[in-house]
């Protein structure tokens, strides 16, 4: 066991899996010599050589496109996109090829590849460094989309992702890269993709969230607990495919539903979860299922970004409303 933060866990996990499986190769911009702008890949080039961990020219489309070819020819590439806002140049590759190769060839080819990227805001960075991509990736059949919220989960989920025979987009909440440490076992363990986790049990209301917002939501739940409101908090962990059972079971128990996320509201990820709850648990609902989300604006530059985020106060206020409906 080691006490690791999220970013060192990513580093440890890549190291672990590269050590175990020499089909795993890691690349992207500044990934090799420097070890990544966030230091996710630090030391890997020294340890495994420049043919297993290397820098690429600046071209996200080619990075992902190359990963496609490598995956077909027997490797398990783990590509890094430097920030989620620079995923867009690779979107054509992701939608048109990464997501479709298995279906297109009726199973003849498949793509065991992972695309990692820092995700979301909160690090006071420049424009395009704070994007939330859940919807535009989650909507695409053939992709799996994962967001860990803790170091422990990150290792288990990333190992699952690399070992998955389908492509996995691995969104890392950069806000909590260094926010806290946790005991992370040095050995092998996986956490299944597609399974949510009840991180706090409760009876009053079901609150689903993921990534950095899990922690803000748990804080809100603590506030509410002091008021006698016991919220059930679920960490979705996988954006796609959605763990419907865990959510629906909880809503059937609580009768109330709130989804909390950083992404923009309209056509955002929360909409899907509300539609799902309507489909599967409508008659159990005692209050309108509610979204607590980012505004429908471009996430502001650092001086304004705090307005965009939901802090635990705003989350608590939103949940309170649903409980008191």
């Amino acid at each position: 066991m080691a006490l690791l933060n999220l970013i060192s866990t990513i580093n440890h996990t890549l190291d672990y899996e590269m050590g175990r499986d020499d089909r795993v190769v890691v690349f992207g911009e500044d990934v090799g010599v420097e070890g990544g702008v966030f230091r996710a890949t630090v030391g890997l080039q020294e340890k495994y050589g420049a043919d297993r961990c290397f820098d690429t020219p600046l071209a996200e489309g080619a990075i992902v496109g190359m990963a496609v070819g490598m995956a077909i020819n027997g490797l398990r590439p783990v590509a890094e996109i430097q920030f989620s806002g620079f995923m867009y140049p690779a979107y054509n590759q992701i939608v048109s090829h990464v997501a479709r190769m298995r279906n297109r060839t009726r199973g003849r080819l498949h793509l065991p590849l992972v695309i990692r990227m820092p995700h979301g805001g909160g690090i006071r960075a420049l424009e395009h460094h704070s994007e939330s991509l859940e919807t535009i990736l989650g909507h695409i059949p053939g992709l799996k989309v994962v967001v860990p919220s803790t170091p422990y989960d990150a290792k288990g989920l990333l190992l699952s992702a690399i070992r998955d025979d389908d492509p996995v987009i691995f969104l890392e909440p950069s806000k909590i890269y260094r926010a806290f440490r946790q005991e992370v076992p040095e050995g092998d363990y996986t956490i299944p993709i597609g399974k949510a986790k009840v991180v706090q049990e409760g009876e009053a209301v079901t609150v689903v969230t993921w990534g950095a917002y899990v922690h803000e939501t748990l804080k809100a739940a603590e506030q509410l607990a002091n008021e006698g409101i016991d919220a059930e908090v679920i960490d979705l962990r996988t954006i796609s495919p959605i763990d419907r059972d865990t959510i629906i079971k909880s809503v059937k128990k609580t009768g109330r539903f709130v989804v909390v996320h950083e992404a923009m509201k309209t056509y955002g990820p929360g909409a899907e979860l509300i539609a799902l709850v309507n489909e599967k648990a409508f008659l159990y609902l005692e209050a309108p299922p509610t979204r607590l989300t980012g505004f429908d604006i471009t996430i502001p530059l650092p001086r304004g970004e705090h307005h965009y985020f939901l802090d635990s106060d705003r989350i608590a206020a939103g949940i309170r409303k649903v409980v008191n409906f």
Partner: protein
Amino acid sequence: MLIERFDPLKGEMLRIMDEEGQIIAPDLKPDLSDERVLELYKVMLLTRAADTKALQLQRQGRMLTYAPNTGQEAAQTASAAALGENDWLVPAFRELGAWLMKGVSLETIYLYWYGNEWGSHFPENVRMLPISIPIGSQLNHAVGLAMASKYKGERDVALGYVGDGGTSIGDFSEALNFAGVFDAPVIFVIQNNQYAISVKRQIQTRAATLAQKAVAAGIPGILVDGNDLLAVYAAVSEAVERARAGQGPTLIEAYTYRLGAHTTSDDPTKYREDNEVVEWRAKDPVKRVKQYLIAQGLWSEEQDAAQSTEYEEYALEVFRKIEETGDPQVEDLFKYTYKEMPEHLEEQLSEYLQYLEGKVK
């Protein structure tokens, strides 16, 4: 080395066999026996027959949208012929001769154009990616295949195709650049057929040749007569050898012409003059090789006619089978989205099957 002798910046083009099938550059003639030339020729003939038949069938409303290859058979067949069995072929979408050469069956190819995903399911031993419709995007896959091969210490190379139009999209430049930086064992073949649908080559880029685009990536580029089977074969073979020997990527522009329409949805009279087509018909790559083979005493007009007829009949027969069996299973539409079908897809499928059942009753 051919790439040193033919500089695209000087407008030099590699030609070995002229329009009458005469060898004009005997010293450059590749190591290809006349028997092998005949084999390649037969693939060209089959390509043309399959094309002809597909167009007929499309006009009868039996085949869907189809992209014809007529006029480009040499560029297609010779380039694929230069590959070994374990080398990877990465198509765009207009390389019928190459696919046949690589060992994909006409059944499979027709099934694709018939509109069924099983038409992209090739046998294990055929190292070819499926058709890639998003122009240019496939070239980065070729780089990745090549990189993996190099990483594993194997000697297999990858060859990716693209059209003249495809040289304008960013993916093309990115792929060449990555290949250069990583010294990937990859060959890029541009089939410059002078048009991207209706857009003339001159509107696609101001560069005098497409081969010179290699300069941007610091890799060798060569311009070859794409209607000259031997020239294409020689250039691609050299590139394959170089790649296999660890000498990195090559860009090859095969200068050719699409004699037919862009696809069956296209009417080329809207954007080009007949006389241009007539001029290019004289350069027909199939005719050239035929004349060569006849001159070598290996072939005759009679054999040629008989072989063409046989191929057309074969193509029709293949298609008839597909018409009977080419409709997909509903389950197949769902089954290959992921390795294991997630619960929500199971649900959608079973609800739909239930609906279909109800409808039948």
